[in-house]
């Protein structure tokens, strides 16, 4: 049967890199109807095509390249795409999203998804062009940094507007947090999907297309879009949007430090005395030269910087995000902002995650301070707090897996095992993923987010900005007056289980649609109603106009991803926090003394999610209600289904 829905390109690719074989298939109707796209469809594909025996870096692992119905369909902000796989850093569910222009281009080239398996004998890249796909030799690109590889691919096809997603040396060398770089300085950074690409001998994907995307009911869709846009332009959000446009995410350095939640000194505390030196004002005044935006985005948080002179001078590059400023800056006690620009740039060119790289280096700095390791364990490098030259040296060694870089390329969990002794106490990760730039000792609900996030310790699966930045109107609107009071209390665990359950489901739709977190996370404008409004007229899937169907679908996606992890052995004992964040009270700053009440929040979360509180396993009834019978049957056989 022909794929009946609009808004999609209508085809996906099955690429077997071992055989060099590409099969073009029509999109599956049920993928769209039940899982929408992006992370939802990727979860279904990975559930079906991998098993607990699938080694993340083996040819058998599956790398899904995904878009969603809203990708490239003029919904702001929707210029995004995603990658998903069993992750090499954590061994569990891994997904990573990225903006820029590549996602839409993949759809204009005629494809919604690309499913990659196997391992090519020699380096190749995949070219997608107007409904056709081919694997091309990438021997000459192997070893090249991401910007050079992109320029060479464009030159080869005499097409300066060819969009790319490529890995750098780090991904090729299977650094476990290797990233995939899109459009020069946008990164699908987290969880090491660049290493998965590298393990397949795939340098990247290039796309160019003139196949348009149609809407099912264009008048209604544009109208619905306009209504959502009006909500985004509500005067209530004027300041948030103005800040995003002027500072991008760098503003968070100031805002987050003010609430005592800026990871400092390997997450020892949440307050950085020199935050101003790496903050929004200095960057905007001294280095920012232009504003940029991803495809069709009305927010425009990206910016370009230039450093005219000094040892870190550079021509125009994408400016660092908050997370990079945190990871190499406050987290390593480095207040030399020009060195952070340099480190961010090197990570983009080498193709590795700035968060995991910065956090791994910060971890080593603490081990040095505590005498657990010394310069002789670290190829003679003086890895002391704030030493930007040591950071730069380690970044290069990690990407090449040279000397101590070979150990640090495996992230803090495995490095702690290598160093032994008390090192594990200072490894700040969940499920093996280094924590991003938040701290549950200053913001209770982020603790629950870290613990339950299917890919490990970061904010992007369920962070709540309602109490983080204070949005009382929205909290009341969504949860009622009474609960809003508890929710807005940033240091209370009350109602946080419900809050994070709600956010996780909401972001499951955001990540399936596929749109940006901005507009949903911050400012918190888009909600379930957004999807109820726009998906049906765009696609023609009538059930998506029904609010209950939309919420059930969100839950279906969340449960399927969780089940993927259960199958790999994840239970409640893994849904926890590292010792530092769970039991060392915040030592300094505005949130001094803070600690998260994780168990209270987890109990409430499991209740809302429909899971057993002892194990975290899903209840059978819940899965069957959501139409996940195939999951229920499988987990039942494994003894992982709660009654």
């Amino acid at each position, binding site marked *: 049967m022909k794929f009946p829905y609009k808004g999609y390109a209508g085809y996906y690719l099955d690429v077997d890199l071992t055989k060099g074989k590409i099969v073009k298939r029509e999109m599956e109707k049920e993928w769209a109807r039940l899982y929408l796209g992006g992370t939802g469809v990727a979860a279904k594909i990975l559930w079906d095509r991998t098993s607990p025996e699938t080694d993340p870096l083996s040819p058998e692992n599956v790398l899904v390249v995904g878009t969603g119905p809203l990708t490239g369909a003029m919904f702001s902000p929707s210029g995004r795409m995603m990658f998903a796989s069993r992750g090499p850093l954590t061994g569990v569910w891994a997904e990573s999203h990225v903006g820029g222009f590549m996602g839409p281009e993949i759809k204009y080239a005629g494809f919604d998804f690309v499913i990659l398996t196997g391992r090519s004998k020699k380096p190749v890249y995949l070219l997608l062009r107007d409904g056709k796909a081919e694997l091309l030799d990438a021997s000459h690109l192997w070893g090249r940094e991401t910007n050079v590889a992109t320029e060479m691919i464009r030159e080869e096809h005499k097409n*300066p507007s060819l969009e790319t997603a490529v890995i750098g040396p780090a991904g090729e060398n299977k650094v476990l947090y290797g990233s995939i770089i899109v459009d020069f300085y946008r990164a699908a950074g987290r969880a090491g999907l660049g290493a998965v690409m590298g393990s397949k001998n795939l340098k990247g994907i290039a796309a160019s297309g003139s196949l348009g995307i149609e809407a099912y009911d264009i008048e209604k869709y544009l109208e619905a879009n306009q209504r959502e846009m009006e909500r985004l332009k509500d005067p209530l959000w004027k300041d948030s949007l103005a800040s995003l446009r002027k500072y991008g995410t760098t503003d968070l350095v100031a805002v987050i430090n003010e609430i005592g939640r800026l990871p400092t000194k390997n997450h020892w505390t949440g307050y950085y005395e020199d935050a101003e030196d790496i903050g929004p004002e200095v960057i905007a005044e001294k280095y920012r030269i232009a504003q940029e935006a991803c495809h*069709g985005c009305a927010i425009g948080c990206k910016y370009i910087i230039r450093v005219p002179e000094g040892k870190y001078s550079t021509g125009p590059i994408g400016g660092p995000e908050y997370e990079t400023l945190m990871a190499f800056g406050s987290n390593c006690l480095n207040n030399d902002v020009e060195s952070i620009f340099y480190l961010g740039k090197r990570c983009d060119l080498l193709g590795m995650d700035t968060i995991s790289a910065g956090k791994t280096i910060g971890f080593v700095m603490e081990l040095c301070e505590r005498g657990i390791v010394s310069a002789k364990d670290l190829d003679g490098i003086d890895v002391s707090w704030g030493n930007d030259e040591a950071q730069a040296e380690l970044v290069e060694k990690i990407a090449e897996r040279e000397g101590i870089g070979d150990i640090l390329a495996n992230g803090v969990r495995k490095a702690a095992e290598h160093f032994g002794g008390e090192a594990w106490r200072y490894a700040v990760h969940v499920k093996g993923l280094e924590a991003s730039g938040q701290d549950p000792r200053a913001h209770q609900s982020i603790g629950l987010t870290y613990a339950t996030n299917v890919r490990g310790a970061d904010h992007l699966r369920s962070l709540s900005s309602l109490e983080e930045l204070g949005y009382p109107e929205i909290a009341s609107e969504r949860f009622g007056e009474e609960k809003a009071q508890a929710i807005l209390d940033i240091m209370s665990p009350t109602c946080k289980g419900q809050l994070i359950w709600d956010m996780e489901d909401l972001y499951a739709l955001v990540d399936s649609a596929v749109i940006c977190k901005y507009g949903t996370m911050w400012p918190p404008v888009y909600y379930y109603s957004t999807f109820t409004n726009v998906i049906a007229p765009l696609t023609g899937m009538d059930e998506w106009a029904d609010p209950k169907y939309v919420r059930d679908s969100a839950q279906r996606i969340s449960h399927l991803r969780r089940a993927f992890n259960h199958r790999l052995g994840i239970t409640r004992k893994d849904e926890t926090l590292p010792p530092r964040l769970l039991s060392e009270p915040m030592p300094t700053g505005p949130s001094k003394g803070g600690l998260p009440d994780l168990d209270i929040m987890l109990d409430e979360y499991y209740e809302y999610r429909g899971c057993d509180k002892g194990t975290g396993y899903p209840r059978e009834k819940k899965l069957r209600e959501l139409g996940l019978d195939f999951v229920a049957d499988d987990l039942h056989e494994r003894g992982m289904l709660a009654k």
Partner: protein
Amino acid sequence: MLDGPRAAGANMQVKNFLAINTDLCTGCRNCELACSMTHTQSFNPKRSRIQILKEEMRNLVVPMVCLQCESPLCKNACPTNAIQENDQGILFVSEQDCIGCANCVTACIYGGIEMDPRTRKAIKCDLCGGDPACVRACEYGAITLVTADDGGYVARREALSLPYRTMGFLVKEGPE
């Protein structure tokens, strides 16, 4: 030194044109989306009449659109008279008459007319009948519809300065 859009021998009575403030353009391509939506009922930037050219390594974002020249190089280069005036006096490409030879694309030094990759016929901006979709779609206020008076000519010329500085051209503007 190149002749400007109002070179000697001007034969069009132009009332309005688009002016782009390149400092405000973020390169988001929403104008391309809106344009393709209006003209092809699909989201398809490659079929847009306005095009954003980029060179990321040099941080260049260059919007290109028809200047509605008083002395239209495209029209003069068309062998089949496919570039015609509509009832508002704006030049458009008659799809029936266009043979897809791309002479107009070669002739236009401003990158204001291009080939539609699906139909293989030339396409150019027709100002959407007076209410351009790209102007409405630009959230950064970079595109405005201006009237052909002194201020408008200056705005149009300023929009050209970035692309031509990039390519090393100097462009004359007619008398103001």
